[in-house]
């Protein structure tokens, strides 16, 4: 340990001569971010040092480290987690004309503490043999008794569903949303699944006829089995729009290399990086000027819900309690 202390003293003396480094804590997985950081290093010479972890643990770590955190930037998935990070004071507001022009207002924090970098659409999927797409319409409609015994859902413990219900609360208020969720629970064909892939498989196998999932899980499944009898349906196109969520990033409050972190986030929102960022996981670029990957684009365009995704974080605890009350496991 002594040598380490000594070493770090020595190293810090020579630190000025070192190449610039940006340090990132990431809840987005290594295989999705490493190609981007490698490209950034090739382009700019700036080193990106990162460590991955679960959202909650990284946030706890940032809080525990406080002013002595090595992190300059937090990269995480789901607006709920971004909102919480901002709410807990580990992020710093950023003013950037580049980011404000690249990222639409509803996909970033109103105070500039975080910015969405890719969009994840959570919509409806149906069994092509058993369901006419014309009979589908909205998330709310899935509570109708006509879907009794025909609906599959993923667990309410997944943040994606907490965000979806939070957005319903934002639109309809708590009381009506609780009725909708109770309707879903009454219509379930089987107990909620632990992940979207298992849920989509159940739709394909006919265990149920319709379900809600993120599009990239569908994309991965279809890539492997193109003949799967599962169709995608854009929910709430008449009113409200498809529920969208983001993965995104913010600069940490105690960043040593604040400018470097801002430059990296700006680069991630740019033409060069957006496709690399989103396509790798079949998500949608957050920057509206960039086209999605051809397979993803093939599913057609949709109207997204334009309420700021920060609402999902703000109402997440309320949504979770509501789902507990409604008996949604």
């Amino acid at each position, binding site marked *: 340990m002594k040598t380490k202390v000594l070493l770090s003293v020595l190293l*810090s003396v020579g630190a000025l001569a070192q190449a610039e480094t940006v340090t990132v804590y990431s809840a987005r997985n290594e295989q999705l971010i490493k190609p981007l950081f490698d490209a950034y290093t090739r382009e700019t010479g700036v080193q990106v040092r990162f*460590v991955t972890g679960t959202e909650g643990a990284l946030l706890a770590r940032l809080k525990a480290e406080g002013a002595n955190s090595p992190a300059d930037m937090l990269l995480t998935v789901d607006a709920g987690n971004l909102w919480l990070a901002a709410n807990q004071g580990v992020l710093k507001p950023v003013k950037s004309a580049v980011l404000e022009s690249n990222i639409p207002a509803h996909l970033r924090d109103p105070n500039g503490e975080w910015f969405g970098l890719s969009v994840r659409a959570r919509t409806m999927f149906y069994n092509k043999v058993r369901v006419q797409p014309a009979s589908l319409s909205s998330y709310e409609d899935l509570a109708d008794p006509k879907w009794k015994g025909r609906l599959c859902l993923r667990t309410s*413990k997944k943040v994606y569903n907490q965000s979806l219900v939070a957005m319903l609360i934002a639109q309809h208020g708590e009381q009506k949303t609780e009725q909708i969720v109770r309707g879903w629970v009454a219509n379930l064909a089987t107990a909620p699944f632990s992940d979207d892939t298992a849920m989509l498989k159940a739709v394909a196998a006919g265990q149920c006829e319709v379900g809600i999932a993120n599009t990239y899980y569908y994309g991965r499944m279809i890539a492997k089995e193109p003949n799967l009898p599962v169709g995608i349906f854009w929910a709430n196109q008449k009113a409200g729009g498809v529920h969208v969520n983001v993965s995104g990033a913010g600069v940490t409050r105690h960043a040593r290399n604040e400018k470097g972190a801002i430059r990296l986030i700006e680069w991630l929102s740019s033409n060069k990086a957006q496709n690399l960022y989103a396509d790798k996981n079949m998500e949608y670029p957050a920057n509206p000027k960039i086209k999605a990957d051809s397979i993803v684009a093939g599913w057609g365009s949709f109207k997204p819900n334009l309420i700021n995704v920060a609402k999902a974080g703000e109402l997440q605890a309320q949504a979770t309690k509501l789902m507990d009350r409604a008996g949604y496991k």
Partner: protein
Amino acid sequence: MKPLISRGALYVLPVALLTLIPLAVVLASFLQPQPEIWEHLAEFVLPEVLRNTLWLVLGVGAGVLLLGALLGWLTAVCEFPGRRFFAWALMLPLAMPAYVLAFVMVGLLDYTGPVQTFLRESFGEADWFPRIRSTGGVVLTLTLALYPYVYLMAREAFLSQGRRALEAAQTLGLTRRQAFWRVALPMARPWLAGGTMLALMETLADFGTVAIFNFDTFTTAIYKSWLALFNLPAAAQLASLLVLFVFVLAWLEAKSRGARRFHGKGGQGARIVLYGWPRWAAFGLCLTVLLVAFVIPALQLLQWGIKVWAEEVDARYWGFVWHSLLLALLAALFVAAGALLLTHFVRRFPDSVTQWLSRIAVLGYAVPGTVLAVGVFIPIAWLDDQLIAVVNALGGAETEVLKGTLAVMLLALAARFMAVGVQPVEAAMQRITRNQEDAARSLGVTGRALLWRLHLPMLRGGILSALLLVFVETMKEMPITLMTRPFGWDTLAVRIFEMTSEGMWEQAALPSLGIVLAGLVPVVILIRQTEK
């Protein structure tokens, strides 16, 4: 009035502090009462999770005890076809992470899996097929994943009590069956209890496995409070209750064991050769358990692994393997040393303060992984702040001194796995008689020499078990590794995390196989050492 601190307690304290400090951080959550969350949990969440958790504890407890003791008895004492092979092969499921087994079980046996699909295609329907995503399914899976703890310890017990004891009982007029129930089993009690306790602690703290079944337990309620209701203090409060429950359980077991002694007679008589149907029943049971708990999931991993081999494997993989092995080896040595010291001092200083302290020192294993990781990280970050202040005062510009070092990882892993080290060593200590110690003392072997010249050599079997268990556990461990590893220092378990957290189970197959293969080595070594 008993003294607050004893000499023994002072010796035990350094090891106990590893767990005491993180536990204190978790307990400190009670300084921030969360009445509103508790009201919600009490009304809508806790009734069901308490019921589920109770069934889980009873089911898995009975399951691992029965299976582990029976298999241990068969391979340690009996003779039947394949006995030598099964003796070590039945340890293999230990290397299979429980969540991997769960994923494979659900994948194969749920409505959309190949079994039910085949049944539907052949017979039109398969509605009679039992639901795997059920209490029974979770209990079955966890039993198959965790029985090796009991098996390993039971084997050790039956081997060390000596088959002579059984023969003696029979010469005293007991039938073989009576001898088993009235001599062999009671004499193996500390081992069976220790192994079952480990399995239960792991069951209670488990999140990954039950999540795959979407089965709500006390631990899922902890994570819900933290990650969905954004309330870390409430989560820590719930976790404290879990620890308290385990503490009481351990205390009750020790109390009911009382002052009984479990000294072995030593000496190996002849094995009991099985004839007729028991011979093939033993073979069939061992084979079935091995197939379901290990071979089938391993084949599934192999199938996935081959598919993704080309795109996944690159030079970095050797780094992951090396880091996993290094970390597991160091953690095993560190924890086993801690366990030996703890057990030794408790024996030398049997006062109640030392006893209590040593019991608290093993509770880290009952805390859900990520909660403990936070409990460990907070004091480390605090300590680092002080060191950074010193270093930076000398002209540095550091954000990490201790953080991101292997030493911190080892301290954190020790906080988690001390129980895994202590249980086998403590059980082995039961075989050392007071007479042997008195004899050693009369020959001038006292104090520290007692540790080196009597305890260490005589506890060899227990220490080896401790090394094996901690080694394999560390390879599989995720939350603490994720939280404390240095930048760029990824392990196989980190790799599994990266893949499974995005639902890419096929890509997770390779690192899982890596863990299984690396786990094979110590399993084979251990069993060869103990096989007689």
